[in-house]
């Protein structure tokens, strides 16, 4: 156990959590809701995004109102400066995105430090990486929508990076721009990508939660209030402002970088585009392969629990308690006295033995540690000398 992780690191994490418990009690320890924190920020993002969507206009200019220019930039400007609390909602939307990336990274770090990423959990690890990439991409498209000079540079950099990709590159670039050049249709496509892919996150989350019996999706309200308070503090301390309105005929060359979302553009600017794609895809695959069995020095492979068919009464307690949905109740064979029979899905089983503890009939066993042996050991200990 914990064998592939430095022991000091895990012990340090456990001690920090212990200290946190002493202050806020287990119930409100944010370390025990590390996966639910990004989920909370996701709801914040959906809500604030909905409000921004009401006033956002996805065009780059509008010839019919040339005296009173209406485009993406002026609509964002209108939200920020004219609508009451508009700047606050915009700030919340922006910083909740940053907070989501931070909490996702902390979540991944704790999962890795406490060795909870491999074997029967590989789906969670891989879908987690897909989710992080999605969050990063959706966040980047949010930066295009503001349509200031930074958006223009980012769009141009993305298009040139996409065009480098062999075979599919030009097609993706055209899909991205919704044509061959930046037009009004480009911005409506950006808005569609930003909102559409953000709902795709929900599909990813479903995959992330699959095989989990009672996923912890919501922190206690007290933690939510604190998360919200921290967010508002940052919103008021560092108000958001747009850059200069984008002008397609100009070529701005530099912009402020948001390190949580825009670091790929830093890479793009400082390396050859082919190298950039190789690095990006290579890093992603490498992280996905972290749960490969040959990479961790596990003590032993999981030996799945086994049902003693003659003893199972079909009471469902083990299937209710199994934390990984590894036990399915099937109809008992004809002639049985009972209606249901427990069956174990070995590829989902973690070998934790919670089902053994749930069974009052000795009807389920870990093959490498029979509960009858444990009971015999207990008896021998209690009766000795």
């Amino acid at each position: 156990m914990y064998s592939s992780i430095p022991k000091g690191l895990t012990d340090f994490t456990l001690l920090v959590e212990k200290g946190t418990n002493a202050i806020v009690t287990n119930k409100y320890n944010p370390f025990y809701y590390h996966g639910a924190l990004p989920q909370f920020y996701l709801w914040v993002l959906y809500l604030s995004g909905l409000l921004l969507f009401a006033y956002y206009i996805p065009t780059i200019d509008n010839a019919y109102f040339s005296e009173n220019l209406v485009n993406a930039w002026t609509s964002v400007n209108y939200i920020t400066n004219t609508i009451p609390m508009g700047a606050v909602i915009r700030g919340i939307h922006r910083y909740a995105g940053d907070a989501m990336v931070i909490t996702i990274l902390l979540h991944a770090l704790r999962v890795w430090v406490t060795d909870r990423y491999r074997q029967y959990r590989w789906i969670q690890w891989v879908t987690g990486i897909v989710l992080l990439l999605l969050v990063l991409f959706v966040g980047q498209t949010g930066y295009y929508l503001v349509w200031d000079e930074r958006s223009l540079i980012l769009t141009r950099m993305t298009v040139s990076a996409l065009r480098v990709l062999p075979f599919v590159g030009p097609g993706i670039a055209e899909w991205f721009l919704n044509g061959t050049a930046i037009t009004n249709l480009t911005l409506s496509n950006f808005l569609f990508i930003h909102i559409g892919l953000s709902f795709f996150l929900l599909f990813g989350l479903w995959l992330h939660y699959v095989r989990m019996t009672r996923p912890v999706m919501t922190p206690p309200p007290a933690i939510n209030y604190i998360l919200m308070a921290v967010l508002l503090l940052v919103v008021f301390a560092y108000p958001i402002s747009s850059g200069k309105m984008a002008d397609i005929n100009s070529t701005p060359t530099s912009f402020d970088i948001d390190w949580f979302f825009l670091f790929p553009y830093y890479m793009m600017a400082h390396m050859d585009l082919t190298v950039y794609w190789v690095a990006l895809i290579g890093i992603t695959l490498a992280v996905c392969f972290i749960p490969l069995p040959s990479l961790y020095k596990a003590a032993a492979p999981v030996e799945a629990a086994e049902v003693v068919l003659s003893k199972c009464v079909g009471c469902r307690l083990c299937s209710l308690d199994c934390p990984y949905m590894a036990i399915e109740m099937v109809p008992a064979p004809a002639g049985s006295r009972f209606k249901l029979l427990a069956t174990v899905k070995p590829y989902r089983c973690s070998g934790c033995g919670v089902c053994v503890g749930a069974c009052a009939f000795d009807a389920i066993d870990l093959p490498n540690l029979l509960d009858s042996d444990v009971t015999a050991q207990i008896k021998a200990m209690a009766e000795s000398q």
Partner: protein
Amino acid sequence: MAVGSENKVITLICERACDLSSVTDASGEVKEVSGLHVVKLPCSGMIQPLMIEAAMKAGAAGVIVTGCQLGDCYYREGNRMIRDRLLGNRPPGLKKTVDRRRVLALWLARPQKDRFLSEAKEFMHLVKGLGTPTPAPAAASKAAAPAASKAEDKTPEEKAADAKPKVSKDIPVNPDATVDGAKGPER
């Protein structure tokens, strides 16, 4: 500490909770505290209430159940499940005949070896004061709450449950713990 066979305490411990490998010998007895035996399990969720009853029946003076800190189960929910089973909020529960004062639950992280030893010594002293264990003490049904009230690593609900002299039917039952929504937890 004077030990007779009536003063044996069995510890059922999760192998990821506090690390006792440095203080136990090959047979699982704690070297510095005679009479304190340790049985390691992959997760505290594997502990069957039947195991605790078996230990008592075989003459053990007490049983210590040790899992990781609540909220931090490697297998997600194991320590919560055994906690709920001991409190009678989740089936299968402990039989009424088990003297709850002789069961101690500790929730300790891996580095907390010393904390375990001090709690265990105190518990052994307490159990010794209870006299010779009998398989079915009459006092058992009165002292329905587990004797773990000393442990500080407990949640407020647990403290509330411990403070109640007798587990009554109106204790809120975890909806997940009922079978088909019809049968309540066994008591």
